[in-house]
């Protein structure tokens, strides 16, 4: 545990010093650490893929639940990985997977959220309190300000939307950013000092 804590502290300190000091040795070490992180993250991604394969392989072997979907998942995973590694991720063959699956299906997944957000809003945004009423009204004004129909109903909707985005929304978002920065720095210092050890599997 102590050695792992020391790794966290030393690696973080090198990168912190790289930000503040212009020492060639520290800059070289910082550059190494940055590329090491990319490699470690790639191995972690491999672990995730390995887990995915393990779970779905088991499901196919036992013919449990939705095993046909799992079998298709495994086939696509193996074929696309092979094409990507053999032909390269910039090849025309690999582009078929990217343009035919990842990009359109990703957009559709996000587009589907429009339905769920709308249905959740219908249930949640009942103007029972002043806060809920403000949230509801501002939400509607911003939506109308974004859509062409809003301008037809009242020409000032886009201007009102713009004011809401640049004044109250910006004030709240900036305050939340500042709060999050203070929180992030506090957590960072706690991790560096070894007070926070949750990521290493230990309590405080």
């Amino acid at each position, binding site marked *: 545990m102590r050695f792992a804590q020391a790794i966290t502290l030393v690696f973080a300190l090198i*990168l912190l010093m790289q930000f503040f000091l212009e020492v060639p040795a520290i800059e070289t070490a910082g550059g190494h650490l940055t590329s090491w992180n990319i490699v470690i993250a790639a191995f972690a991604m491999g*672990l995730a893929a390995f887990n995915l394969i393990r779970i779905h392989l088991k499901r196919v072997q036992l013919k449990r639940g939705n095993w046909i979907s799992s079998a298709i998942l495994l086939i696509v995973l193996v074929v696309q990985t092979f094409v990507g590694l053999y032909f390269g991720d910039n090849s025309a063959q690999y582009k078929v997977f990217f343009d035919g699956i990842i990009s359109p*299906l990703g957009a*559709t997944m996000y587009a589907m959220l429009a339905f769920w957000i709308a249905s959740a809003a219908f249930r949640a945004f009942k103007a029972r309190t002043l806060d809920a009423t*403000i949230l509801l009204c501002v939400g509607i004004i911003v939506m109308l300000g974004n859509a062409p129909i809003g301008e037809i109903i009242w020409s000032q909707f886009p201007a009102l939307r713009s004011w809401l985005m640049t004044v109250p929304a910006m004030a709240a978002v900036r305050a*939340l950013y500042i709060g999050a920065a203070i929180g992030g720095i506090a957590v960072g210092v706690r991790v560096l000092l070894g007070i926070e050890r949750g990521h290493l599997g230990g309590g405080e």
Partner: protein
Amino acid sequence: MGSITTWMAAIGTLGLLSFAWKDNKFYSICEHIYVASGAAHALVLGVKNIKANAIIPLAEGKLLAIIPIVLGLMFYARFIPGQMRWTRYPIAATVGIGFGQSLPRLASTNFVSQIRATFKVWSFNSVLVIVGIICVILFFYFSASKRGQRFLQYPSRFGRIIMMMAFGALFGNTVMGRLSLMIGRLSFLFRDWLGIVG
């Protein structure tokens, strides 16, 4: 009626949209294909990154490149019974590097820059932004009780109203963003795939 890519995208899009009706096999298959494709893409990029940042430098005689490979392989120790503890080290390294990289940027972009940008222009709206920021921060001030202290209670209440306005605005923007994506998907289906709309 375009290429194989258009057909793949169209069938996948229809499959995912079918969930709006109810959970079904077609949706499940398309969802699994999407997950598989995403995982495969991450895997391909991962191998490319390992090659560029570890294998090639190692082949060039830069022996330090062995360290991230060893650290990365330690992740897989979780599959060896009783050797789970080795996974601590790559996590410790990632957390250390992550904090080292993000702390200065967090302090400069999320803290100093935000305060600087707030006091840059002086107008009625900018004064409102400043008051809004102070009030929202006061809303999250929990070190003292706000009960009976009007100089804390009223600004905190105003901060809450500002936050509600912001959440409403962000919600409206999110819904419109998602709807524009939906229009994009429908226009793909009707124009690019079926060719019905010009």
